[in-house]
């Protein structure tokens, strides 16, 4: 059984990886300088030209890109190729301003799918496997990425998409799915349903690739035990490509970053300074092979640690820990990115005070999401029917803005807890 999808790359020496990175970075910087006026302007403002970038050691000289840049440049400002050269877009949930739209050339799609194929092979996937992809299909990168990776490995691919659990279970039993790809919370839900239906002995699953949201070791053990599989983490973000930027191997101790495509740095989120290996800080990625959406020094806002300690699996690429938090206020709820400011916008539009509180918890391995909203004089009336209608309209507007449903709880004014005069906007009770 093949252990690696691209052995010569995945087990290359550190020197070889560095050599690829040096060469590709130099080329990539020239590419963005010539083809991405938005980034060129940033470089000029910082007084950097492509001549200053001779190797990865010079990476720190380049300006960062953030989600604010993506917003400002939306939709075409950070493209490195004309639309006629692109074959695909993928996007995150969320409305304009928060939504990320990324472009791909055929080459970009190929390399992204290679990354996902590496992840599938790393969990033991071969052409004899039946790969059940229960990530959402469509704009979301989850379905598309693993689907493409599964094709590359040669698995029999089941493009299930998310939802309709009964159908998922039927295909799983009838077609003998052996690898499942979905969010960890959906995996936990499936495990629960399988247990309830008493069909565990009809399930042939051996491994799962679970990403797009944070999950704990406890949850991993729970899923592994209930499904009788090994559960692996996968990491990625639409800005950088999608799932497969890094993936877990059999060691289940951190995720190998595909360093032939992405250079990872850890920085101090406050000063922007690069931190030495092993220190905890914000993860920053530079795409060195992407053509259509070549982000340089993109700040992920994920806080984690990198490690170059040798891995028992034989892969030589640097490993990142599970993200331990965020350097901004973004929440990931049921796999969807939620910014408190989006909720604020909706509240103001709907005539409620911007004094709110978000309460997130995890019950039975699924995220609960409640927004406490203060009643306003404008929205109050003697009619319960009218208040309920206003509430429904608020719930609808939140769903439209965020892409996921929130439970709204209307409360009396000034009842939302404040600490030291500052309102506490988010209470995250999830233990991850």
């Amino acid at each position, binding site marked *: 059984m093949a252990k690696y999808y691209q052995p010569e790359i995945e087990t290359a020496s550190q020197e070889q990886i560095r050599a690829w990175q040096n060469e590709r970075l130099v080329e990539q910087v020239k590419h963005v300088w010539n083809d991405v006026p938005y980034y060129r302007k940033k470089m000029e403002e910082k007084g950097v030209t492509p001549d200053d970038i001779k190797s990865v050691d010079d990476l720190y000289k380049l300006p960062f890109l953030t989600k604010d840049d993506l917003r400002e440049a939306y939709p075409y400002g950070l493209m490195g190729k004309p639309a006629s050269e692109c074959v695909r877009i993928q996007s995150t949930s969320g409305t304009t301003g928060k939504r990320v739209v990324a472009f791909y050339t055929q080459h970009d799609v190929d390399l992204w799918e290679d990354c996902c194929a590496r992840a599938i092979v790393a969990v033991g996937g071969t052409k004899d496997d039946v790969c059940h992809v229960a990530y959402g299909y469509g704009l979301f990168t989850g379905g598309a990425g693993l689907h493409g990776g599964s094709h590359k490995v040669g698995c029999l691919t089941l493009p299930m998409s998310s939802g309709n659990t009964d159908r998922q279970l039927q295909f799983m039993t009838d077609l003998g799915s052996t690898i499942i790809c979905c969010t960890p919370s959906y995996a936990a839900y499936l495990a629960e349903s399988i247990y309830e239906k008493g069909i565990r002995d009809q399930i042939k699953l051996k491994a799962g690739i679970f990403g797009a949201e944070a999950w704990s070791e406890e949850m991993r053990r729970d899923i592994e035990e209930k499904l009788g599989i090994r559960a692996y983490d996968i990491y990625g973000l639409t800005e950088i490509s999608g799932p497969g930027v890094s993936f877990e191997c059999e060691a289940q101790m951190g995720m190998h970053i595909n360093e032939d495509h992405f250079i990872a740095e850890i920085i101090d989120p406050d000063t922007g300074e690069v931190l030495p290996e092993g220190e905890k800080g914000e993860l920053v990625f530079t795409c060195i092979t992407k053509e259509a959406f070549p982000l340089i020094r993109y700040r992920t806002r994920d806080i984690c640690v990198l490690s170059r300690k040798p891995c028992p699996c034989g892969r030589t690429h640097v490993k990142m820990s599970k993200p331990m938090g965020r350097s901004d206020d973004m929440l990931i709820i049921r796999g969807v990115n939620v910014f408190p400011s989006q909720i604020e916008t909706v509240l103001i539009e709907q005539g409620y005070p911007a004094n709110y509180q978000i309460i997130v918890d995890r019950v039975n391995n699924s995220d609960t999401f409640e927004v406490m909203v203060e*009643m306003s004089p404008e929205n109050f009336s*003697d*009619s319960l029917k009218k208040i309920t209608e206003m509430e429904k309209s608020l719930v609808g507007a939140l769903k439209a803005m965020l892409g996921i449903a929130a439970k709204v709880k209307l409360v009396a004014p000034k009842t939302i807890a404040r600490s030291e005069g500052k309102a506490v906007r988010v209470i995250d009770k999830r233990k991850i």
Partner: protein
Amino acid sequence: MNIYQISVFLENRAGQLSEITKLLADNGINLRAISIAETSDYGVLRMIADDAERASSILLEQGNIISMTPVSVVAVPDRPAGLSEVLSIIAEAGIDIEYMYSLFTHADDKAYMVFRVDGEEKLSSAIKAHDMEMATKEEIGLK
């Protein structure tokens, strides 16, 4: 001459109702009627106070969310089928009742019902056309 009802937003929190009634009692406000409509998460307390203007400013001062609504108070003949007669008059006039509740105040030969309808004028004319009466502020002890 309008009679105003005060509505107060209630969270589903133990003690909030008694806090409000105590606040009003401490300020010498007398309640003539009270009714609550609720969902599992929140409710609306509706009341008729003897001094609506003062009661509302006291409630507002304490940070309550309130709303004032003109309502119709009908003097219902205190005899069998009295209420049913009133309701048929309203129905025949084609007026929709959003909600109704009764006053604590009672006279020898009549009881008083608060009606929240769309079209108070119409209701008042219909009632009077059937030789029945709308309550006056004085007879139910309102200022």
